[in-house]
């Protein structure tokens, strides 16, 4: 039997006409480009409306503002990847914040022990919810809706009648209120950039060795230079105020670790497989149930860290910590960053960019003295717009692929 002719459009770049090239561009995975364009537009508009928006001081504040939602969105994106939802992460963060406050303020625990215990409580709560969802077969929406209520109840119980608990611990306060000395910021940047360059070079070498196709060298050079230049700009700019906040280092560090986990490891591959087709993954030998439970625990552990950041921002825990629209904003951030609510699509660091979009809108409208009602409306509109653009591009891609 003869080999079969290609029934897919040719993808050899050299032979493509302009129309085909545009088509290929539409098909391509745009990665962070849409959310970056959106972010640039939002920043431009706010800068035009208020010249204080892009000052070092305001951008420094913006980094701190993005902390809680950003950290929460990292957990959300993991849960969305496997095609589940977790509605409890917000109040879980609030409960863990209350646990830390009670241990530190009322019981005088050492800082590290209180933090470790709170994160363990968070992870255990996630383990419980994931376990119930997987073993009993209750949809995660329902289990975590129950969790949403229950954890808030625990938080209120812990805080008692006062409804608020101050935290004096220096370390906890410092998480969102301390800055890197200039030299350390630059050193970290150099180390991070060097690591990234080495990674790009090693991947290229691995492909060349096996004589596989490689990206054009210019792509790799751009992939090396762009983050370096952007990083240098951020560090130099923030140095104009107090310096680079530690919180930014924590956010980027955790998202890099989770990014590597999801895109570079076998476990990460399995997360995408479960989100894509759970039954196919199971038949291929992926330990679906185990991994699902693990993801709920991991997301809950990250929510506990988000709770810590919330404490650090407010120097206290109140009944409102972790409540309100917090979790919905984190889900919105993940979706604006390109994660799919149907599972199997999404990138960790893009969720952080999505969180930056939401925080930028809030920050900008604050600067303009708008009430929170306006902020809610604007955030809602942006979410729907972002998802609509994504849905349209996906439908086009599917239509062309079929």
């Amino acid at each position, binding site marked *: *039997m003869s080999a079969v002719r290609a029934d897919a459009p040719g993808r050899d770049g050299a032979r493509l006409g302009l129309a085909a090239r545009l088509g290929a561009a539409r098909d391509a995975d745009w990665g962070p480009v849409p959310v970056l364009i959106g972010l640039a537009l939002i920043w431009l508009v706010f800068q035009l409306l208020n010249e204080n928006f892009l000052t070092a001081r305001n951008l420094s504040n913006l980094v701190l503002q993005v902390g809680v939602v950003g950290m929460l969105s990292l957990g959300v994106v993991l849960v969305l990847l496997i095609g589940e939802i977790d509605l409890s992460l917000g109040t879980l963060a609030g409960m863990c914040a209350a646990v830390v406050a009670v241990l530190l303020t009322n019981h005088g625990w050492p800082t590290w022990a209180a933090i470790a215990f709170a994160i363990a409580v968070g992870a255990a709560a996630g383990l419980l919810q994931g376990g119930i969802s997987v073993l009993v077969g209750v949809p995660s929406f329902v289990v975590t809706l129950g969790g949403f209520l229950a954890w808030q109840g625990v938080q209120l119980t812990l805080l008692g009648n006062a409804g608020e608990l101050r935290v004096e611990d220096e370390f906890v306060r410092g998480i969102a209120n301390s800055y890197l000395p200039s030299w350390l910021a630059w050193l970290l940047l150099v180390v991070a950039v060097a690591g990234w360059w080495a990674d790009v070079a090693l991947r290229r070498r691995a492909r060349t060795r096996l004589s596989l196709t490689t990206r054009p060298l210019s792509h790799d050079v751009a992939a090396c230079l762009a983050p370096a230049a952007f990083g240098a700009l951020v560090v130099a700019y923030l140095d104009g105020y107090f310096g680079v906040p530690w919180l930014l280092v924590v956010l980027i560090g955790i998202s890099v670790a989770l990014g590597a986990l999801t895109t570079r490891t*076998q476990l990460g591959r399995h997360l995408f497989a479960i989100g894509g087709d759970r039954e196919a993954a199971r038949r291929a030998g992926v330990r679906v149930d185990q991994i699902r439970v693990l993801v709920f625990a991991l997301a809950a552990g990250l929510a506990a860290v988000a709770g810590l950041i919330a404490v650090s921002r407010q120097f206290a825990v109140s009944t409102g910590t972790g409540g309100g629209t917090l979790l919905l904003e984190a889900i919105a951030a993940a979706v604006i960053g390109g994660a799919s609510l149907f599972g*199997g699509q999404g990138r960790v660091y893009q969720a952080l960019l999505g969180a930056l979009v939401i925080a930028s809108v809030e920050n900008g409208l604050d600067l303009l003295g708008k009430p929170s009602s306006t902020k809610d409306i604007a955030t809602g509109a942006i979410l729907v717009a972002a998802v609509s653009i994504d849905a349209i591009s996906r439908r086009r891609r599917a239509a062309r692929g079929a």
Partner: protein
Amino acid sequence: MPAVNSAPLLRLEGIRKSYGAVHALNGVDLEVRRGEVLALVGDNGAGKSTLVKTIAGAHTADEGRILFEGDEVRVSGPQAAAELGIATVYQDLAICDNLDVVANLFLGREQVKAPLAGRLRRLSNAAMEQRTREVLAELSVTTLRDVRRPVSGLSGGQRQAVAVARAVLWGSKLVLLDEPTAALGVEQTDMVLGLVRSLAERGLGVIVISHNLSDVFRVADRIAVLRLGRNAGTFVRAESEPDDVVAAITGGRLLSGAKAS
């Protein structure tokens, strides 16, 4: 171990399977050799699917013997079948749309490297991609140029090719295909039938379930007919006519209009 090409790779003897009072299989014999495509045909309810599921380990027979490479085996589950070298490509293909071709081929058995342990080990993406290209080239699959594209963008035939390549990649000796050309267009059907032939040319045994007699006559070396859970004849393709097979399927009555084209 017989090295001759004609020695049976798989031999079923007197397979019986009942679901309650329903006798799905009533003592079926079947034989597949290396390098041979065996088509399994029969009307709805003839027991084709039940038989394939028995071989695939999806359920076990009540009675009868299964000999694989000359030894009697118990196919107690899909895992046991995979360990023997029996791969099944079901109609729904069981591939993940959001993953690319390489990821689908290696799903569950990814090539990994140090440093971390367990499932935190790093994927060897370049090595997996190279192996994928080799397997696709061996199978003469030229339609999958970009193995880094998500499978969602592939046609039905290409997806079938991915599922079949997965079976080959893992060194399967016997491949079971359930209606591989159902819902495919003419060109896609050509491609998939070509793929089935190239599996046999590689020395694998292939069992194809199909309703489409014209496809069966193009691809099979032998045709086994089941009727009401019993053997109703085995035909050597080169020596038989579609009408003979139709007669066997329907139990001797030659229905007008049922002639295969």
